[in-house]
C-alpha cells in the first residue's frame, strides 16, 4: 500500500502529512510533484494544505489546472481514495470533485485555533474508526473556510449523510458560536457521492501525536489504511 502526497507550488503542509503517514503510522508514502501524470503506484492520495499558487485569484483555482489533476480524476474514477485537507479541500471544490465553494471566513481574518468536530458519518473510508457522534479536537488554519453551497445541494448532502464533520461546541452541539468561519450548516468536511473523495478544512495531520496536544486526527489516516486493506469501499 502506498500513499502519495501531492506537492503543488505553494503547498506547505505536504511534509506534515508525509510525516504522519510515513514516520508516525509507518505506511509507505511518496511526494507526487504536481506535474506527475502517472499515479498507478498509489492507492491513496493526499492533497495537502498550504497556499497553492499563492492562493492567487481564488484558493485552489489555479492548482486545479495542474497536470496532475487530470490523473486525479481518473484516480477517483478507479475508486481509489483522495483526501483534501484545507487547501486540498479547496482544490477539490474548484475541481468539481466535491460540490460547493469556499467563501472568506465571516470574521474576515485568518483563523488558527483548535475546534471541536462531531463525526457525523462513520461509514466512510476516512472515518470508519471513529464512534458515531464522537466529538474530536482538531486545529484549523485558514482564511477561506466558510463553506457555501446552494440550498438544494446542502439538503442533498445532509440527506445522503455526506456531511462527515461538523463544527460543534464541547458538548457536541453545532452552535453558531462553535462555527469558526460561518460555514453553512457548520460544515467542516464532506464526502463525494461515491464515498472515496473527502475534503475537510481542519488539519488531522496536526493532531496525530500526543506531543502536539491531541491524537484525534490519526484515525483519519488509520481509517483510510483499514479501508484499503479490507477493500470494503472500493466497489
Amino acid at each position, binding site marked *: 500500500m502506498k500513499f502519495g502526497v501531492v506537492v503543488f507550488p505553494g503547498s506547505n503542509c505536504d511534509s506534515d502529512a508525509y510525516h504522519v503517514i510515513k514516520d508516525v503510522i509507518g505506511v509507505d508514502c511518496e511526494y507526487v510533484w504536481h506535474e506527475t501524470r502517472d499515479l498507478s503506484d498509489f492507492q491513496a492520495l493526499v492533497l495537502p494544505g498550504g497556499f497553492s499558487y499563492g492562493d492567487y485569484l481564488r484558493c485552489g483555482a*489555479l492548482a486545479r489546472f495542474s497536470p496532475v489533476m487530470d490523473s486525479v480524476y481518473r484516480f477517483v474514477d478507479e475508486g481509489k481514495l483522495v483526501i483534501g485537507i484545507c487547501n486540498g479541500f479547496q482544490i477539490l471544490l474548484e475541481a468539481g470533485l466535491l460540490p460547493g*465553494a469556499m467563501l472568506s471566513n465571516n470574521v*474576515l481574518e485568518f483563523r488558527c485555533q483548535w475546534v471541536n468536530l462531531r463525526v457525523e458519518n462513520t461509514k466512510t473510508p476516512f472515518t470508519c474508526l471513529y464512534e458515531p457522534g464522537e466529538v474530536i479536537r482538531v486545529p484549523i488554519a485558514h482564511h477561506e473556510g466558510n463553506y457555501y453551497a446552494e440550498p438544494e445541494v446542502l439538503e442533498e448532502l445532509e440527506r445522503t449523510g455526506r456531511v462527515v464533520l461538523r463544527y460543534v461546541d464541547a458538548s457536541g452541539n453545532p452552535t453558531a458560536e462553535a462555527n469558526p468561519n460561518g460555514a453553512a450548516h457548520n460544515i467542516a468536511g464532506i464526502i463525494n457521492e461515491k464515498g472515496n473523495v473527502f475534503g475537510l478544512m481542519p488539519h488531522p495531520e496536526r493532531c496525530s501525536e500526543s506531543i502536539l496536544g491531541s491524537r484525534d486526527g490519526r484515525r483519519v489516516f488509520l481509517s483510510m489504511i483499514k479501508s484499503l486493506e479490507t477493500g470494503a469501499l472500493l466497489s
Partner: protein
Amino acid sequence: MKFKGTVTVWLKEGIFDPQGAAVKGSLEAMGFKEVEKVRIGKNIVISLDAENALEAKDLLEQMARKLLANPVTEAYRVHVEEEKAGAER
C-alpha cells in the same frame, strides 16, 4: 487586433459579502448615510489579440467561465475595448 478586456467578478446576489458589509459600516460611520449597499469584487484586466471585438469577448467569456470566476459563488461581466497603441506602458 489588440483588445483590452476587463472581467469584473463579484459575489452573486444572495451570497453574504462580509467585506462589503464591513466597508458599508465604515462608510456609514464616516457620515455617508446615503449608502444602501456595498459589494466588493475584482477587476481582471487582460490584453489580448483577436480578429474582432466579438471574438475577443467570446474568448474572455470562456476564460471567465473556466477560471476567472467560480460559478458556484461568483457572477461576472465582460467588457471589451480596442487597445489604443502606445496608450499604456
